């Protein structure tokens, strides 16, 4: 109790020592389409509409995009039978050679069919950033050009290879035109249609207030920030897409709702393969974004979500990343803080021991020695630091359910639960967070780890984690129950007195200072600094030994 009081006092005084946060995000402030109360819901997850049926009022107008003879060649080379014939028939209807041109012509409910080919969107690539045509609609902060919504509407290709901006010139932040647009590759496999950036555009596909967007069946690669991006969008689906070699994120959604990520592959991202940030506030009564049947590997993080609220992630594989999954409350300017109410179940979270922080990698990725454009995009250069060898980490979160997952062969920790004092996340200038300066210890609360299979594969073979559960002992109501080790063995943890059971749970309020301090030094990581590439006192960047 005394320790709790002392730590609380430290945190409160620490908060006083740190001034408020200036508005600072490489993106404009954004707002939830359905507010934060969880009531008065609108919108829904869009449904797929067949590509092959012609234009109709019900199915929407069809616009066909192709690369002329190159598409013909690819169709012959890659498709057979009915699929080949259908694509050749569509080729005759092709009127657009760049996807953005079709988007520009599209009205609500349009279906944009993209025939096999490589789409580099050269006209978009030529647009400057910032674009003087949109003077007054952006601001520059250091290296970042931060556009307003109007900037992206009026200069759509300044930062985006393909942009779908659906809100007309009014103040309601709701989609008016370019709503319910479906963009679908017509190949047999995702890779038959390749949307290819050069790491010069921040985003390859940006859906901005583009309610009802449905993206399906293509491969996308080489963005400078996000390969696929949805912002302030009510209703979206990403379906059967392969996203690779983004400098930061494979798939990213932010302040969006009624979404589905399904059957995706994400790899080679400098940050996360899949990132549902500032997820919808369902207050643990609904999950506004579903992520399923996806495979995320060889990224710095397989899945991450700052303020990743209201997410239901199930039946996915997060493996061979630096860290498999994280959700957190430690970055500023994210609506929906503190993070709460995600449900992770029936996932396989394994072998997350890829070390992108070795001396050799640090040297390769040092931006002072090699510009981003000169990097081999297949080599992951991490944009943030993670504890290599970790399955799933919750860094400040509440009401999360981690249930019935296979968590194995993560050489550091299978699952990690960390307290993040509220002042460390700064302010939310949009007023969409539950920030109470008097309550610095507002996490982790009521997280439940139940019925997880720890340290063995689905086939039953043993593949231990270095340690199954790591907890700094902070918060309250956190519980562990029904988790099993290989052959029914008890799970391991770093809590000497044992983990509190469910449903009651436990927590000391403030974290155990020895445990939280062991993480603090890792915050100083800086790949541009020889000492701070591998800061003393931080073990995150050393691959743990394979557990026996």
């Amino acid at each position, binding site marked *: 109790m005394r320790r709790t009081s*002392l730590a609380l006092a*430290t945190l409160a*005084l*620490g908060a006083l*020592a*740190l*001034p*408020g*946060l*200036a508005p*600072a*995000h*490489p993106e404009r402030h954004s707002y939830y389409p359905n507010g934060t109360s969880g009531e008065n819901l609108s919108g829904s997850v869009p449904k797929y509409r067949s590509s092959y049926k012609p234009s109709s009022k019900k199915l929407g107008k069809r616009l066909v995009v192709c690369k002329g003879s190159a598409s013909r060649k690819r169709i012959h080379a890659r498709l057979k039978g009915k699929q080949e014939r259908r694509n050749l028939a569509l080729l005759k209807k092709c009127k657009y050679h760049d996807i953005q041109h079709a988007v520009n012509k599209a009205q609500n409910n349009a279906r944009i069919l993209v025939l096999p080919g490589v789409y580099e969107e050269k006209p978009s690539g030529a647009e400057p950033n910032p674009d003087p045509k949109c003077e007054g609609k952006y601001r*520059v*902060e*250091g*290296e*970042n050009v931060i556009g307003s919504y109007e900037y992206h509407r009026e200069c759509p290709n300044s930062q985006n290879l393909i942009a779908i901006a659906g809100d007309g010139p009014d103040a309601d932040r709701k989609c008016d035109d370019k709503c319910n647009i479906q963009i679908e590759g017509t190949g047999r496999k995702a890779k038959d249609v390749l949307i290819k950036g050069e790491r010069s555009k921040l985003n390859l596909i940006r859906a901005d207030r583009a309610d009802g967007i449905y993206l399906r069946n293509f491969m996308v690669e080489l963005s400078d920030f996000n390969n696929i991006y949805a912002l302030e969008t009510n209703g979206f689906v990403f379906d059967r897409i392969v996203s690779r070699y983004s400098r*930061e994120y494979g798939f990213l959604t932010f302040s969006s709702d009624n979404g589905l990520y399904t059957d995706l592959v994400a790899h080679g991202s400098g*940050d996360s393969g899949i990132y549902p940030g500032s997820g919808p506030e369902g207050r643990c009564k609904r999950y506004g974004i579903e992520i399923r049947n996806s495979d995320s590997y060889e990224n710095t993080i397989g899945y991450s979500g700052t303020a990743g609220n209201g997410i239901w992630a199930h039946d996915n594989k997060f493996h061979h990343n630096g860290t498999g999954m994280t959700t*957190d409350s*430690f*970055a*500023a*300017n*994210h609506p929906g803080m503190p993070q709460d109410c995600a449900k992770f179940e029936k996932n396989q979270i394994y072998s997350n021991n890829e070390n992108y922080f070795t001396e050799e990698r640090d040297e390769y990725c040092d931006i002072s020695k090699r510009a*981003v454009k000169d990097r081999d995009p297949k080599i992951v250069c991490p*944009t*943030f*630091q993670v504890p290599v060898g970790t399955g799933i980490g919750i*860094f400040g979160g509440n009401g999360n359910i981690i249930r019935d997952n296979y968590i194995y062969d993560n050489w550091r920790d299978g699952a990690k639960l*960390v307290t*993040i*004092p509220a*002042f*460390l996340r700064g302010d939310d200038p949009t007023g969409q967070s539950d920030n109470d300066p008097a309550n610095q210890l507002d996490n982790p609360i009521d997280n439940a780890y139940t019925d997880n299979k720890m340290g063995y594969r689905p086939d039953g073979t043993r593949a231990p984690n270095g340690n199954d559960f790591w907890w*700094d002992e902070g918060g309250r109501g956190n519980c562990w129950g029904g988790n099993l080790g290989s052959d029914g063995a008890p799970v391991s943890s770093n809590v000497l007195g044992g983990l509190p059971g469910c449903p009651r749970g436990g927590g000391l309020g403030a*974290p155990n*200072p*020895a445990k*939280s*301090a*062991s*993480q*603090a*030094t890792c*915050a*100083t*990581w800086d*790949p*541009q600094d020889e*000492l*701070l590439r591998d*800061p*003393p*006192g*931080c*073990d995150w960047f*050393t691959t*743990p030994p394979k557990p026996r």
Partner: protein
Amino acid sequence: MRMLGAAVLTTLALALVACGADGGNTSGSLAWTGDPRVVTPQGLPEDRTLTGKLRNDSLKKVDLRSARDVKVLDEDGNSVPATAIFTDTFARSIYPPARGPSRDTRRSEENRIGLRASLQPGGTTPITVSWRAGPGASEPVRIEIAGSSLAIPRR
């Protein structure tokens, strides 16, 4: 005059508090409050981490920038490679190190995550300092920060 007298008394009182807190070996406006601890982090037998809390015992605001202001010194006054941060847990910027914001924004972010701190008179901040102590490495004995010298406790 009366105000000046009160200020002098306050300064003396604070100085006494500072001496009492660390039993000496401290000079300057910053002092340990409570006992700093030095531990060997799990899995890093050659590293040491000091955790403690600093208090500004002066009558002026003190601005701290960890990477530049904090020096860890051995008995001969040689600098030992070290890192410092003004938090007691992990924090993260929203900006990757290689994608910088403006100077003002960077400064505000550094304050938020504990890479900087501003201490008002009487204000405190947690501090975590780490260094390598492998074979052949010097044993650090004190930390110099913003004109203050603070003893590192022997383990």
